[in-house]
């Protein structure tokens, strides 16, 4: 394939009118891989719901890129607005007065370095940096540390706000900061009518690169899906691949045993068992049921009102480091499903109290805009250097 030709331009603040009032400047959303791009797209929707007239830019952090060209075309065909290559780009961004806020689900090293500078922190009219968690985080305390310099931090589940406060309450370098509950992928779930669900025939298994971690475990899950397909000829069972085999070799999570490769080892591949690399949104439009092991896809399934099963009893689960934290996080959800229940497609509705601790209200965009306004009025600002 030829080198991708993208409309992204290197970050050049001279292209931005510098004399725009702070609260009228665009908001910048950063991304570098599929997870961060999903975040950026969802956050853009939340912000547009709060203010349809907002100008929102998408910034591609090229130095950390782990997107294949196929994913770029699939997820962001219009291309990003800016490309950030190095430390100098982030330094310029923080001082150019081009954006009112930078929203990110990953605190990139150069961005973190910039905002950790005390002088930068108190500089007037610099963009407000708002850090969200990447998604379901099984070791969240590391993520909290990386976000300690952000001007606003969004955390979930809700009880974790107290954990964050405990960690940083007496921290000597703490500057102005607001801590909130929420994430654009974790907003109040929709409700699908029983008729709507009954009309859907697609069952999706959302795969992951890391879990199950063994070849035997993955082959077992494949056999489970084949058995479900065989028992339900009126339905399609889709194995939704996150990456195509061999794709995303720079991704943090490398897939050792891909499902299409393992399918050759099945005795029989039912016609209604299929692979897809469609987007999550496309899958959830027709899904009657979403199954996953330890993937954050479970959250997307729940949010869209589709019945969800979290299956953690797969073969070799004891060597999978993601199983224990996933079990803990979903312990009260009623969604952890045994193999027998899964094979018979007996899904449970999620627990209402658990939902409240995981999913925030739909006013996330409004709250973010309020954070930015509060930030612009914070005390002790340095107007000249």
């Amino acid at each position, binding site marked *: 394939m030829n080198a991708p030709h993208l409309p992204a331009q290197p970050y050049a603040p001279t292209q931005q009118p510098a004399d725009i009032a702070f609260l009228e400047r665009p908001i910048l959303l950063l991304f570098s891989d599929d997870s961060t791009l999903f975040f950026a797209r969802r956050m853009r929707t939340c912000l547009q719901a709060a203010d349809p007239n907002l100008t929102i830019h998408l910034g591609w952090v090229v130095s950390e890129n782990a997107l294949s060209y196929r994913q770029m075309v699939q997820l962001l065909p219009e291309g990003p607005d800016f490309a950030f290559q190095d430390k100098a780009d982030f330094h310029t961004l923080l001082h150019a007065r081009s954006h009112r806020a930078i929203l990110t689900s990953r605190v990139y090293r150069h961005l973190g370095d910039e905002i950790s500078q005390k002088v930068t922190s108190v500089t007037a009219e610099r963009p407000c940096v708002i850090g969200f968690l990447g998604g379901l985080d099984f070791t969240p305390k590391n993520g909290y540390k990386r976000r300690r310099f952000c001007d606003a931090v969004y955390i979930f589940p809700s009880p974790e706000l107290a954990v964050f406060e405990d960690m940083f309450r007496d921290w000597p370098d703490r500057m102005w900061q607001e801590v909130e509950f929420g994430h654009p992928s974790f907003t109040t779930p929709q409700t699908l009518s029983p008729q709507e669900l009954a009309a859907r025939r697609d069952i999706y298994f959302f795969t992951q690169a890391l879990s199950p971690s063994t070849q*035997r475990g993955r082959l077992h899950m494949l056999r*489970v899906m084949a058995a479900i397909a065989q*028992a339900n000829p009126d339905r399609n069972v889709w194995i939704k691949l996150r990456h195509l085999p061999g794709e995303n070799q720079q991704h943090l999570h490398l897939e050792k045993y891909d499902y299409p490769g393992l399918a050759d080892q099945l005795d029989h591949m039912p016609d209604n068992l299929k692979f897809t690399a469609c987007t999550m949104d496309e899958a959830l439009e027709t899904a009657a049921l979403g199954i996953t092991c330890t993937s954050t896809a479970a959250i997307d399934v729940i949010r869209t009102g589709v019945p969800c099963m979290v299956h953690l*009893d797969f073969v070799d689960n*004891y060597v999978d480091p993601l199983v224990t934290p996933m079990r803990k996080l979903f312990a009260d959800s009623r969604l952890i499903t045994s193999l027998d229940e899964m094979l*018979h497609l007996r899904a449970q509705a999620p627990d209402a109290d658990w939902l409240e601790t995981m999913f925030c209200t739909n006013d996330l965009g409004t709250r973010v805009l309020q954070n930015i306004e509060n930030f612009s009025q914070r005390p002790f600002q340095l107007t000249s250097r």
Partner: protein
Amino acid sequence: MIAKLKKTALGQLLYRVSRTQVGTPLRYMADMLKNNQNQRAHSLPQHKKHNQRQMDILAAFERNPHTGIEHTRAKHIEAKQ
């Protein structure tokens, strides 16, 4: 753990030695360690039992999707009564 070891001087020395003719046993050992099936966890009785149970449930369902293990259990309870 292996990733950490690779970054140390000892790790790099081991790597260099493993690439030489005398490094054959080292390469053999590394292949053994990399193989999933050689992990100690796989030989623990409770883990073997867990895997066997999952495979049995699946095999029962594959044989007869409309009965499965629940049906077997129900029949067992009936027989006891």
